[in-house]
């Protein structure tokens, strides 16, 4: 340790780097339409029928979004188009993309069910700055069951995803499984559905029962411990498989994020895991009706009529008392459980998750699903970090992007 001034300053700096400091707005989730051509059993969005009217941006909303994008102050911008099925309104996507000022380095993600790929969508996909995100719930049967689809419909989806993968590769085409925590698919079958397509990143995301899904699965208010076990088993399967076949390196995105947050202060781009976590700063969600939400989950809660967490709208902005009220509590600081928790520097605060599960944020943190899940995953992470098992070390190094096959000893300096 350097004595004196530098040591003192660098310590202060290290403490601050563990906290999130919001920058300029540089991440937008946009919902140009709520209409969709599918009706998945778990659809969290309370989607609208494909032919319905009144569920797309009005001209006024569109123009206001375009203004917002034009006024981007950050040097980079990420825009995610959600729905509904956003490719039903490629014209709106094009208008938004066209509004990005020339000095801004922008990337776009189109979240689509890939059931149909209209020619306008294909043209958008062809842009270098556009990537595609879709849902792939596992093996064919499983995927079809969750979507309430017949074989032909599933086949159409598979043809689309496989064609796009062949055309663009897995850097551009990614997928997420949406998993029912009560009956997740066999880990290896799920991994195979991805690995077989050359997709190496899998984001395990249990269905958060709210919105439309909440009404259908009323028994699922808390994710039971089976999910934690499933997640852990899944990570261990990945480790085993990576060790056996060095040609492909699989990872689970959320676990990799936790690992990075452990070692790298300032890894704050995941908007649901940071501390403090002020809303309406670097990130905003704009719904089909122009309302502004702090997160996508918050939008769904409002859609489902559970609680209105909108913090403003695209015309008047979101510098509102509603936002300030949320931000006052969007932190781990001062919480007795978090303050006593060894994982606090790596953990974060997601009040929307608490509200969606318990209708309040006023319960002891350690009794929340969020806390239980993170305690479990951090415990697992540290167990793996300190494990001498070369297979484990190998995967950790790959997930952290290192060259060696073993974490540098004394890595937690």
């Amino acid at each position, binding site marked *: *340790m*350097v004595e*004196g*001034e*530098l*040591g003192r*300053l*660098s310590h202060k*700096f*290290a403490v601050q*780097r563990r906290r999130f400091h919001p920058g300029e707005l540089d991440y937008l989730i946009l919902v140009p339409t709520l209409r969709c051509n599918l009706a998945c059993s778990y659809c969290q969005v309370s989607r609208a029928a494909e032919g319905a009217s009144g569920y797309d941006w009005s001209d006024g909303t569109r123009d206001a979004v375009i203004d917002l994008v034009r006024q981007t102050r950050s040097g980079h911008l990420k825009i995610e188009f959600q729905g509904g099925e956003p490719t039903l309104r490629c014209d709106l996507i094009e208008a938004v993309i066209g509004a990005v000022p020339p000095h801004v380095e922008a990337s776009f993600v189109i979240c689509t069910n890939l059931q149909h790929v209209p020619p306008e969508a294909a043209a958008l996909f062809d842009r270098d700055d556009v990537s595609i995100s879709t849902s792939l719930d596992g093996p064919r049967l499983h995927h079809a069951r969750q979507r309430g689809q017949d074989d032909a419909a599933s086949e159409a989806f598979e043809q689309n995803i496989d064609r796009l993968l062949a055309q663009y590769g897995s850097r551009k085409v990614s997928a997420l499984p949406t998993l029912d925590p009560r009956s997740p698919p066999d880990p290896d079958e799920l991994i195979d559905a991805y690995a077989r397509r050359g997709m190496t990143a899998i984001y395990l995301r249990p269905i958060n029962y709210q919105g439309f899904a909440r009404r259908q699965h009323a028994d699922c208010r808390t994710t039971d411990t089976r999910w934690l076990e499933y997640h852990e088993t899944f990570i261990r399967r990945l480790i085993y498989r990576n060790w056996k076949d060095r040609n492909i390196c699989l990872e689970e995105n959320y676990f990799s994020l936790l690992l990075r947050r452990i*070692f*790298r*202060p*300032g*890894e704050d781009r995941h908007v649901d895991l940071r501390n403090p976590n002020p809303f309406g700063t670097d990130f905003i969600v704009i719904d089909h009706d122009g309302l502004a939400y702090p997160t996508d989950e918050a939008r769904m809660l409002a859609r489902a009529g559970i609680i209105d967490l909108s913090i403003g709208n695209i015309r008047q902005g979101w510098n509102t008392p509603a936002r300030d009220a949320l931000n006052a509590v969007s932190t781990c600081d001062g919480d007795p459980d978090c303050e006593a928790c060894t994982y606090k520097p790596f953990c974060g605060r997601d009040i929307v998750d608490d509200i969606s599960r318990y209708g309040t944020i006023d319960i002891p943190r350690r009794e929340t699903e969020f806390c239980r899940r993170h305690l479990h995953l951090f415990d697992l992470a540290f167990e793996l970090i300190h494990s001498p098992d070369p297979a484990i070390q190998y995967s950790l*190094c790959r997930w*952290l*992007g*290192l*060259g*060696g096959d073993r*974490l*540098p000893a*004394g*890595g937690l*300096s």
Partner: protein
Amino acid sequence: MIALALRAASDAPAPFVTRLSLQAESEPALSHFLACTQAGSLWSGTQGLFEVASAAEDLIGDVVLVDPFEGRADRLIRSASRHNTLLVTEQCDQLCAMCSQPPKKTHVDRFDLLEQASLLADQGITIGISGGEPTLHRARLFSMLESVLEARPDLNFHVLSNGQHFTAEDALRLRSPCYRNVVWGIPIYAADAASHDAIVGKAGAFERLMASFAHLLRAGARIELRTVLSSSTAERLDTLASFIVRDLAHIEQWSVMGLENIGFARNRWNELHLDLRRDFHAVGKALDRANLHGIRPRLFNIPLCHVPAAYRSYAVASISDWKQRFSDKCAPCAARPECSGFFEWHPPELVDEVFPL
């Protein structure tokens, strides 16, 4: 190798800076091409006629410093190059074992000319500033950076400094927003004073460096740390990495660089040179440790085929165009566009030790 200093003839009463253009333009800082001559090319500007010993097409867009007394034209900022470095002084207060540009006692103040040159640079480029030790003339240096950046906020500067002279007062000055466009490249060779001081040839250098880092951290200055790899730094590199991730975590980049066989290092090459193909372990571990903790490590000046495959993503094609060379045996190599190659002055018998990828 691209020649940076050319023979030139001019009747101007004093050295001057101008930018060479093909056609006559109204801008007085520009000179335009007149004719090909036996020696090279003839140009005309506000300083009269001058001749430069090079074909005109290679020089168009270059900013040159013409010195009529020395009969020389220095290509200060070459239009087509990403590697332009202005030498502001040849004095230095350290004597580094691997110094590529051993210091001289005297100082010739060219700041005004270099400022003019910077103002004539292409849009948006990064201009390197080096020495000797630029911060020996801090007041002049800061004034130059500030006035250039005020007029040309599109430009960036990268200043090489040994970090021996920054003061608390400087920290106040360096907080000015224009310094967002300035990166300070500062060498550090070890995490302990004894080893660092021995390498830079100055007692107390490490301690003074730490004081400078504190001032620069206060100023929010942008820093690139630089460590030259040699037999004496490699074994301590991982300890240095631990030190950096803990106490210098605010830096933008850590550049770990291959040794140049020039200057002081030339005489002690056999003693200092490190063969990474034989042992990459210590270096790899240090790079991984920095990366693990979110410091960006970069490996400079090392041919890709000397780096184990798993670590190649750290390597950058770094050697400046004008001093870069490849072996004839590199011809079939697929990695050549991403490879740094060798320094022009690398020992010839070693240049052929390549393994095309």
